[in-house]
């Protein structure tokens, strides 16, 4: 496709876009090869979750404004799902590829650089974020709890959320020596964040200082963005969330690249 030839007849290596695409393609290919076990849970999980909340818990919880509780929750769920899938991919998944099956070592013998490898991985995690968020929308929209067509923006925010948590998770992975260490990251950081980032109740309900703490947490921002877009409540303050997200991806992506390079190149 893009194989170029330079003057002395030596083939030039593929372009940056092709290299990133081929790394992304590897992950997609692996994901696709177990289509049933990989593709079904993203649809089942929100179904069970929303059914449980909608039929049970939701009755006891008042509406937020004119949004019933199950709807409030449903607008955050695509984002947390995207966060979780990207985090799994870039912790356990990446660790296994580096340490156990040495797949990355193999790829580094082909014309793929460490940066290509890591950025391709981040893009793939974003793609999974897109797909998982999309699955939630598909499940929730027929019940009218995610408004259409505005809800269709959610997979895109899922993509961005995937990029955020892929970058952060890769940085975490670069420090990890034994795989069980990831338990700290999941139960110590990601799970608490689920409750403090405006997913299950509005950030405004938090007591004073915790409200500021919530602004530091990465999940707060895509959740706020997603809900605002869903409800058609666009406002200038959301630019702050966009800025936070952009800076977060750039900073943690950069640090992850630097640290993982040290791990992959002797």
């Amino acid at each position, binding site marked *: *496709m*893009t*194989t170029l030839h330079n003057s002395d007849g*030596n*083939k*030039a*290596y*593929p372009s940056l876009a*092709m*290299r990133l695409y*081929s790394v992304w*393609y*590897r992950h997609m*290919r*692996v994901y696709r*090869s177990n289509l049933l076990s990989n593709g079904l849970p993203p649809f089942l999980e929100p179904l069970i979750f929303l059914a449980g909340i909608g039929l049970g818990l939701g009755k006891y919880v008042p509406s937020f404004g004119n949004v019933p509780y199950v709807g409030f929750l449903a607008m955050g769920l695509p984002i947390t799902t995207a966060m979780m899938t990207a985090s799994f991919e870039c912790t356990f998944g990446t660790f296994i590829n580096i340490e156990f*099956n*040495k*797949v990355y*070592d*193999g*790829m*580094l*013998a*082909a*014309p*793929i*650089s460490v940066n290509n490898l890591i950025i391709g991985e981040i893009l793939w995690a974003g793609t999974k974020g897109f797909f998982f968020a999309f699955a939630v929308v598909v499940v929730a929209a027929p019940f009218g709890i995610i408004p259409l067509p505005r809800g269709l923006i959610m997979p895109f925010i899922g993509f961005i959320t995937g990029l955020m948590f892929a970058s952060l998770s890769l940085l975490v992975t670069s420090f990890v020596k034994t795989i069980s260490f990831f338990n700290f990251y999941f139960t110590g950081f990601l799970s608490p964040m689920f409750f403090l980032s405006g997913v299950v109740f509005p950030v405004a309900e938090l007591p004073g200082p915790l409200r500021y703490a919530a602004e530091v947490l990465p999940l707060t921002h895509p959740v706020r963005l997603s809900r605002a877009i869903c409800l058609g409540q666009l406002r200038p303050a959301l630019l702050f969330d966009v800025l936070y997200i952009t800076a977060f991806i750039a900073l943690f992506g950069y640090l992850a690249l630097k640290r993982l390079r040290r791990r992959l*190149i*002797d």
Partner: protein
Amino acid sequence: MQPCAISVRNVHKSYGKTKAVNGLSFVVSQAECFGLLGPNGAGKTTMMSMMYGKAERDSSPEGVIDVLGFDPQYNPLNVRHLLGVVPQDDNLDGELNVYQNLSLFAKFYGLSGSAAKTSIERLIETMELTDKKRSKIRELSGGMSRRLIIARALLNDPKILILDEPTTGLDPQVRHMIWDTLRLMKKNGITILLSTHYMEEAFQLCDNLIIMHKGEKVIEGRPRQLLDQSIEKYVLDIINKEHEDRIRGYLNSPSIRADISKETLHLYSNHIDALKEIACLLEPGDFFLRAANLEDLFIKATGRALDDPA
């Protein structure tokens, strides 16, 4: 003299306080097979990793690695595009089958469509993997995995093939098949850099070789020439030292070099008659008298101590 494909000059590599490669220099000509020999931990793998930018040498203005005009440390993609690498550990993608492993790497090299398909089919046939085309990686035997990794390394018609102990742990059939493949590659003008600690492998394949020990080069030359010049012609292996006292008087003879290990005794000499004379004093079955080979040279150059860091 052929133009050179690889040139390594005064290269150092340390991991913390350990010096894995210590001032190594050598030149590999185009279309030759060059052997890196040495015990475990001699620095062979580290040297090979530096060839394609998987490891970086210690920074020093004197240290130079040139692979087909590129420095792998700064232009890893140029080098990797021209190279095929067969690593010591199997690092096939266990999540994909045989064919998919190759088609993925074809993508990495920018091959696509029918060109990729033709190369893949041809290599699957050459490496005798046709029956296993759709098999999972874990269903492959050690020999099949190795052949698949070699096929993967050949996908992009490399100018140089780097093989790190390609036949370790394989049965003789597969080993000979791999040797044949490498000979064919060499005939096609591919430069081969091979590390091994099987001396027969080096003798069968290599035009030139170096023996490494503790990160340094201890001997360099052509296998035949090394055998002629750097080691005595004959060896008397005494595998049962029970009657050692009968021959003690001969051990200090100037024409004989004795190499004593725990259970055995090896006497080296250029004069077969001297060794025959000693052999007469021993019980039949306690000794072998034979021509010296590269393994003897290897032991002479690197000693009998175990260097395996594990």
